[in-house]
């Protein structure tokens, strides 16, 4: 019964201050570049016209969601492995899942806005769209489990196991377009042949988008981690003062 969270490397911040600032600045610069390339420098698609430009946000958002959920899973595994167990991984897992959920929601929303002019419908019950919606609700469930009051160690274990299970949907989402017939097109860049079917400036713009969203993810993760650390401190302070009040230490 000597289970304790290992706090020996209990960091208050994920990235050193200077590194965090560099990431924040690069995020802003790359988003600026994406705006320029996405709206002006890249040409409109021959078939889809300007509607295709939504891809420069939709694909990077989906990519960032994959990365975020991947980090949540990795952090959860590191927490579950006794030798690497640390409260740091629990915070990373929770923070990353929140950001991943936002990116998944963004992917669904942008996809819907793209589908209306191109496919002719806002939504279709095909395997890609449904598995992505399932992904959104699975991680919403994960965050609900995190929100259930419990001892920190119990909560962390519960969350870590859940995170590992719900991640199964990520490969299902990615390969759904190859496994099943879908209205959604197949992967352009990360296709099984690893041969991107996109040209010059359009490909460059898409890559800028992927870099920008990855940086945005790191920047948000860093902030959210700090917030999680401060929240824990606040909970402890509140608990201490409540105990003190009960025992008559404070008027």
């Amino acid at each position, binding site marked *: 019964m000597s289970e304790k969270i290992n706090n020996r490397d209990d960091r208050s911040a994920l990235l050193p201050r200077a590194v965090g600032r560099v990431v924040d600045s690069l995020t802003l610069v790359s988003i600026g570049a994406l705006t320029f390339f996405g709206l002006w420098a890249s040409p409109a698609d021959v078939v889809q016209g300007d509607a295709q430009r939504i891809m420069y946000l939709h694909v990077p958002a989906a990519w960032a969601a994959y990365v975020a959920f991947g980090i949540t899973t990795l952090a959860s595994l590191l927490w579950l492995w006794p030798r690497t167990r640390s409260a740091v991984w629990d915070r990373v897992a929770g923070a990353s899942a929140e950001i991943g959920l936002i990116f998944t929601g963004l992917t669904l929303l942008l996809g819907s806005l793209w589908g209306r002019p191109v496919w002719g419908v806002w939504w279709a019950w095909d395997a890609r769209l449904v598995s992505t919606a399932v992904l959104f609700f699975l991680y919403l469930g994960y965050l609900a489990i995190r929100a259930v009051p419990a001892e920190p160690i119990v909560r962390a274990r519960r969350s870590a196991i859940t995170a590992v299970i719900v991640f199964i949907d990520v490969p299902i989402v990615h390969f759904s377009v190859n496994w099943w017939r879908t209205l959604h*097109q197949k992967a352009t860049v990360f296709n099984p042949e690893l041969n991107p079917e996109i040209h010059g400036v359009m490909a460059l713009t898409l890559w800028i988008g992927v870099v920008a969203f990855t940086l945005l993810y790191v920047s948000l993760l860093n902030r959210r981690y700090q917030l999680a650390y401060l929240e824990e401190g606040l909970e402890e302070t509140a608990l201490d003062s409540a105990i003190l009040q009960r025992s008559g230490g404070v008027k």
Partner: protein
Amino acid sequence: MKGRRAWVAIGICAVAVIAIIGLAVQLSGNVVYYRTVSEAVKIRSSQARFRLAGAVVPGTISETSTGVSFEVTDGKKTVTINHRGDPPQLFKPGAPVLCEGAWGAATASGVAAFNSDRIMIKHGEEYTPPKVKVTTTTSLPRG
């Protein structure tokens, strides 16, 4: 005691994984979002609703009183579609389309047309700027 709980947790995970994989395998046979023209003509006597995929045959599009009529092909078979309503923006000769609806009654010639009430454009995963020479003009839905 601790060991047993760990085994229970691992057991639950294993069951969940098997259930999800089983569900995925089971679904893979049923999650058919559309049928190709060749597959669709095999069930011509059926009244069931489904989605039919094919490329619009150039030169067959004509406006009707309720919408538009055209032919679609998958390269092997060709069928006539009677669509109620307006086709979507990207609808044009050669466009890869999914038509949602059901087979109509057989006409005097003995061949039923497909009555559609919704057209979706199934575009491919290729993106091309206007100047690049396009080698394939129509991309048939694969599947």
